[in-house]
């Protein structure tokens, strides 16, 4: 690295608090005397603060949007109460005659925008109104620029603030928003051709109309001359949605309350459109796919079957959701159950559990095998096991288990494997030997046959198609054995977090089945049992696994985070893609320019 970059790295470490105490002191005394270095540190700190601030300003921007949206909802409820004569109206103040007369009774300034009246202009105000001003619509007496002062009022508070009223010839009027457009400088600007104004609205009323405001003598505005809105398409769609809702949904659902099925208000904000579309078409398919939300709702509503609506088209569903969305604005979202919270909890739980499980598995992997067999020759050197390849019938299936909490070590000095029995020695007869235990333990243990008199130690495995019976040579249980000798079978393993052990002593014969009953024991108990047997220099030891402390700590954490799991919700189900995605503000990221470094 260049020395400049090394300095940057050093400052970075300093700002992160990664330098040692001694280095920090040395560094600080260095920049106490060196103004250039001090400046460098400060600049780097500023840049880091600016990077951090980017996320804070994004947060504030979101809060702002949320704030403006929620004031809208408040007004929605309020407006309804006052909708006495006319259910709703979009109010528009324009001044078709000389617009120079100031109709607004208050002198509070609006926002100003400068436009060129000789060009087509589309203006979007900071509050979101869109104003299309075609070329030549405003006669500014030939001036190249005109400043427009625009006041927008979408909430009761704003209307009062600007001194605007919602009355038509003395009757109250419900308002979807008002806009007032004035030239900012006194002059003789006039609107000579229509301009188009679109106001932002979260909710469309069926009989909204456009009113014109004229200033009365008392400084109040009277709203008269209602006109149909130019853009009635959304309303047609909502009407279509309303009819669909009444015919298809209303038999089982209401917007506000539980009927046969859950209330549907705000559903468009809780599930993605594609999910809703799939669910409306064929809810059974979504449920059987294992989708979390679908199954959760299905269970809460006692597995009541919902009708299928395969015939609804994409635009039908779009209209339906638009209608529901529009009606939802009149309902306090807090009064409608929101099941999506359960999935936030599930997501949180799964994220944490996955990390812990991953660490746990890594620790278990590091522990090695649950039961280790060490064979030494008479000098004490370790010898490797010979592998027996048996073709007919195949050998027993030995299952190796990873060590979680305990590790068993079976160590022998000068002992032999089962191959010693295959040689033609006197007294060895073809025999059948089975070891049987319950399935739950059989799945978790390693089983050994020991004949101390002959120094034979051999590991057993499952017999053909069995989950309970072990053999020691071939999968049909056959093994040549010396007859009438003292022998043992023992099992080592762990089950439900505890070490398990069993040993059984027997005298060999031509055909026998030994039952083993492994049971949970402490390390001391196992040591005590083994020490009472004369095993002829064979030792069986049990110890805690290498990573036992850390694994037990993870187990405790896993049990603790289980409380993130919501009640009634199986977090092992399939969360949809939107749920899995980590939300991230991308407004600061731009596509890399071609040829950028």
């Amino acid at each position, binding site marked *: *690295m260049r020395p*400049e*970059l090394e300095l*940057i*790295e050093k400052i*970075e470490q300093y700002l992160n608090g990664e330098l040692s105490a001694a280095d920090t002191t040395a560094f600080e005394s260095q920049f106490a005397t060196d103004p250039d270095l001090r*400046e*460098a540190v400060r*600049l*780097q700190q*500023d*840049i*880091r*603060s*600016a*990077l*951090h*601030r*980017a*996320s*804070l*300003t994004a*947060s*504030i921007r*979101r*809060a*702002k949007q*949320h*704030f403006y949206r929620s004031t809208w909802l408040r007004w929605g409820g309020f407006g309804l109460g006052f909708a006495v004569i006319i259910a709703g109206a979009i109010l528009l103040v324009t001044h078709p005659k000389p617009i120079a007369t100031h109709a607004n009774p208050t002198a*509070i*300034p*609006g*926002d100003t925008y400068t436009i060129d009246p000789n060009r087509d202009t589309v203006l979007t105000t*900071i*509050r979101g109104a869109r104003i299309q001003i075609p070329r030549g619509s405003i006669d500014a007496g030939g001036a190249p620029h005109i400043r427009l002062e625009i006041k927008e009022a979408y909430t009761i*508070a704003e209307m009062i*603030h600007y001194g605007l009223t919602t009355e038509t010839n003395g009757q109250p009027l419900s308002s979807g928003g008002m806009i007032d457009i004035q030239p900012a400088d006194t002059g003789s600007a006039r609107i000579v051709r229509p301009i188009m104004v679109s106001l932002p609205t979260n909710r469309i009323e069926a009989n909204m109309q456009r009113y014109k405001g004229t200033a009365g003598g008392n400084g109040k505005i009277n709203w008269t001359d209602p006109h149909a809105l130019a853009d009635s398409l959304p309303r047609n769609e909502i009407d279509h949605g309303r009819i669909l809702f009444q015919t298809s949904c209303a038999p089982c659902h209401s917007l506000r309350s539980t009927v046969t099925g859950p209330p549907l208000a705000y559903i468009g904000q809780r599930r993605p459109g594609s999910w809703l579309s799939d669910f409306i078409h064929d809810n059974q398919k979504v449920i059987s796919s294992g989708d979390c939300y679908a199954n959760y709702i299905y269970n809460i509503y006692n597995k009541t079957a919902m009708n299928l609506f395969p015939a609804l088209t994409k635009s039908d569903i779009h209209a339906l959701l638009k209608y529901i969305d529009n009606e939802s604005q009149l309902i306090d979202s807090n009064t409608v159950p929101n099941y999506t919270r359960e999935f936030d909890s599930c997501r949180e739980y799964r994220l944490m559990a996955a990390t812990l499980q991953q660490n746990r598995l890594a620790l278990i992997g590091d522990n090695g095998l649950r039961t280790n067999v060490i064979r030494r020759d008479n000098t004490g050197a370790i010898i490797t096991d010979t592998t027996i390849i048996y073709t007919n019938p195949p050998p027993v299936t030995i299952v190796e288990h990873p060590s979680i909490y305990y590790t068993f070590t079976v160590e022998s000095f000068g002992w032999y494997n089962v191959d010693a029995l295959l040689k033609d020695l006197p007294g060895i007869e073809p025999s059948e030997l089975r070891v049987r235990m319950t399935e739950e333990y059989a799945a978790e243990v390693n089983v050994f046959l020991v004949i101390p008199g002959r120094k034979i130690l051999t590991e057993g495995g499952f017999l053909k198609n069995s989950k309970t019976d072990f053999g020691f040579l071939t999968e049909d249980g056959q093994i040549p054995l010396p007859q009438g000798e003292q022998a043992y079978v023992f099992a080592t393993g762990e089950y439900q977090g505890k070490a398990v052990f069993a040993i059984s002593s027997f005298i060999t014969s031509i055909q026998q089945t030994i039952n083993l009953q492994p049971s949970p024991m402490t390390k001391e108990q196992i040591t005590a049992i083994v020490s009472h047997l004369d095993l002829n220099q064979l030792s069986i030891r049990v110890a805690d696994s290498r990573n036992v402390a850390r694994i037990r700590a993870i187990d405790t954490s896993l049990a603790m985070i289980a409380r993130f799991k919501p009640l009634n919700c199986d977090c092992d189900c399939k969360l949809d893609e939107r749920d899995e995605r980590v939300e*991230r503000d991308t407004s*600061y*990221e*731009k*596509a*890399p*320019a071609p040829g*950028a*470094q």
Partner: protein
Amino acid sequence: MDDQPILELIRTGKNDLALSVLYRNFPAIRKLVQTRGGSTRDAEDIFQEALLILLRKAADPRFQLTAKLSTYLYSVCRFLWNDQLRKRRPHIPYDPETGLHPAEESQLQTEIEQEQRIRLAEKVLDELKDRCRELLLLFYQNKFPLKEIAVKMGYGSENSAKNQKYKCLEAAKNRLKELHQTSPTP
């Protein structure tokens, strides 16, 4: 909601939730600014600055709230707007009463200067090459490990991503230094 839980939210990094509650104070601020010659836009800017100051201070565990949060925000906004007015229109007499202790005021003055420095640094970030800005934001804002950034942005190795990060910091620092020299800030 009480003030203490809001501070708690900020300290645990749940800024979104805290801000959505804090933003309810906006109408009062808007009124303050609008009655003193500002627009809604001005009010939003002032309020944002006050929120940034509050977020920075509240994240410090030593921060003690002496008044209600709403009062605190209002006072800070009043102070900030006075400061703005003084710069914009020196002829308008400003509101001498902010409701703050002189000590708090002088501390706020320092905060404002600090904010201005950071804003200049933000401008520098905007001017940076897209890839540089993305790299820095991924590392500092989204806290992605360098290894992941290397994969995501197609650098050969973690080390070359690290090297690149330092180069970007260097470019930003040099530009910021230049800006400081051409337009000295307080």
